[in-house]
């Protein structure tokens, strides 16, 4: 019923991007997101598209796979486009009927906005396609560590994510089993209105919660038996380490920002 699930959307490989340190990937992704927000002119968008294609190419990901990551938000993108196109602001009115007002500026704005969303989705999905959730967790823990002094529980957050990643498949299996058990006793999960359906979910949720609590209890004992006592004094088997490629990635991210700042405010900006 729930079938094979893949956690996250990791696409295994060993390209240059796959081998980067997760911290680098997270930070450079943030840099590129900033770069995307800086874009305003047509050349800037052209540059961003070239950049995204370049990143996908060196990640050795199938282009179609990355394009598909836009799909979940397709509706919002189309809505953004429609809003800007049909109720756009601007001088050059192309068509007007009651509240519908299509302007040249509106169309341009709509295209830019939806492109911005698409670029954002694609660049951040490159991060999740090339980094397994486990490695990503390590990266997040490491990046949050400096903020521990202001009370960010870096280790605890990472531990919770690790345990969640570990137990999601187990709990899904369990859900599947409970659904089958309840169905065999005549439970009906299909018919009725939404409220009825939600109510029918109770025979699944209650056993699932009870079992989850029992598992949590068992796990806590097992962790204690294995000398777990929080993040203090803990070492890791896999140490994260920056390499040459990471420096290149940072340079690339910063160069993109500088380039887009120049395109927007630089000496050439006025002519574009």
């Amino acid at each position, binding site marked *: 019923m729930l079938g094979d699930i893949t*956690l996250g959307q990791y696409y295994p490989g060993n390209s240059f991007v796959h081998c980067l340190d997760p911290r680098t990937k997270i930070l450079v992704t943030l840099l590129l997101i900033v770069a995307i927000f800086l874009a305003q002119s047509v050349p800037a968008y052209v540059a961003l598209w070239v950049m995204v294609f370049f990143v996908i190419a060196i990640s050795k990901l199938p282009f179609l796979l990355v394009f598909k990551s836009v799909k979940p938000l397709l509706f919002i993108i189309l809505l953004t486009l429609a809003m800007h196109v049909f109720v756009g602001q601007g001088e050059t009115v192309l068509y007007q009927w009651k509240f519908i007002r299509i302007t040249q500026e509106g169309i341009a704005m709509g295209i830019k906005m939806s492109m911005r969303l698409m670029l954002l989705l694609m660049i951040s999905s490159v991060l999740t396609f090339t980094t397994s*959730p*486990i490695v990503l967790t390590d990266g997040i823990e490491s990046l949050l560590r400096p903020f521990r002094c202001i009370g960010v529980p870096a280790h605890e957050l990472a531990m919770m994510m*690790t*345990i969640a*990643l*570990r137990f999601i*498949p*187990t709990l899904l*299996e369990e859900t599947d089993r409970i659904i089958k058990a309840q169905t065999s006793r005549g439970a009906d999960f299909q018919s009725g209105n939404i409220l009825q359906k939600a109510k029918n979910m109770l025979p699944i949720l209650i056993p699932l919660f009870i079992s989850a609590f*029992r*598992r949590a209890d*068992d*796990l806590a*004992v*097992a*962790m*204690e*038996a*294995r*000398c*777990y*006592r929080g993040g203090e*004094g*803990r*070492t*890791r*088997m*896999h*140490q994260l380490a920056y390499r040459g490629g990471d420096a290149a990635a940072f340079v690339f991210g910063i160069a993109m920002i500088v380039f887009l700042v120049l395109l927007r405010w630089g000496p050439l900006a006025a002519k574009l």
Partner: protein
Amino acid sequence: METKQQAPFIDIKDLSHIYTDTENNEVLALDKVNLAIRPGEFVAVIGTNGSGKSTLARHLNALLLPSEGTVKIQGMDTLDETKLWEIRQNVGMVFQNPDNQIVAAVVEEDVAFGPENIGVPPDEIRQRVEDALKAVGMTEYRTRAPHLLSGGQKQRVAIAGTLALGSNCIVLDEPTAMLDPQGRKEIVGTVRKLNKEKHITVVYITHNMVEAIHADRVVVMKKGRILFQGTPQEVFSRVEELEELGLEAPLAAKVAFELRKTGMKLPQGIITNEDLAQALA
């Protein structure tokens, strides 16, 4: 090989454990238990539900602390808080449910969990993980996700986790109760191998008598007390007593017992099918 003079690895003296149940009644789970286990010994603890065997297991690495009496691991008292982590390193635990004791989402990461907790340097962790996975025959699964493994494989990963922690004693609390026959075989085989080849002290808690056959000593528990103990041959020959307790002696021992009743002359101490076949031939 006999090491009777050697100081015991685990030394339990007059151990009692009292807990309060949900209705606020005091329950005596362990009642003045005395037990000494030698280094490298393979001890099986058998008993029905509520016999206190799991409670006993949890006293062995200070998950529970004595209400009365003492538990000493290599001379370290479990009541001594400063020795807590050393005791837990020495005595590894494997629990019944294979799913609920694996922490990480990758096999090797899980095996590394213990040594990471006690602050072992990364290079040494890698070495320990490799050795531990090799010892339980799970090296080829090192990068797998635990939920894709069979029950027996998961339990072997759990055993590897205790080895990587540096435990020279493993307490297994009904490790095969949730496994299929194949998984059972894997676990019993792995535990025996570790005991024989690496001289790991094993405390094996079970209610499956067949798994206790290869132990050096079998301890029978009932209602928080040790009823009797001895070699598997001695214990399993007491077929009627075991049955009274609700425990079932291994089939071969039972058959031998019944045959003897009909007047057939069979040697004592028949507990495995091979023994029986040989005696009958």
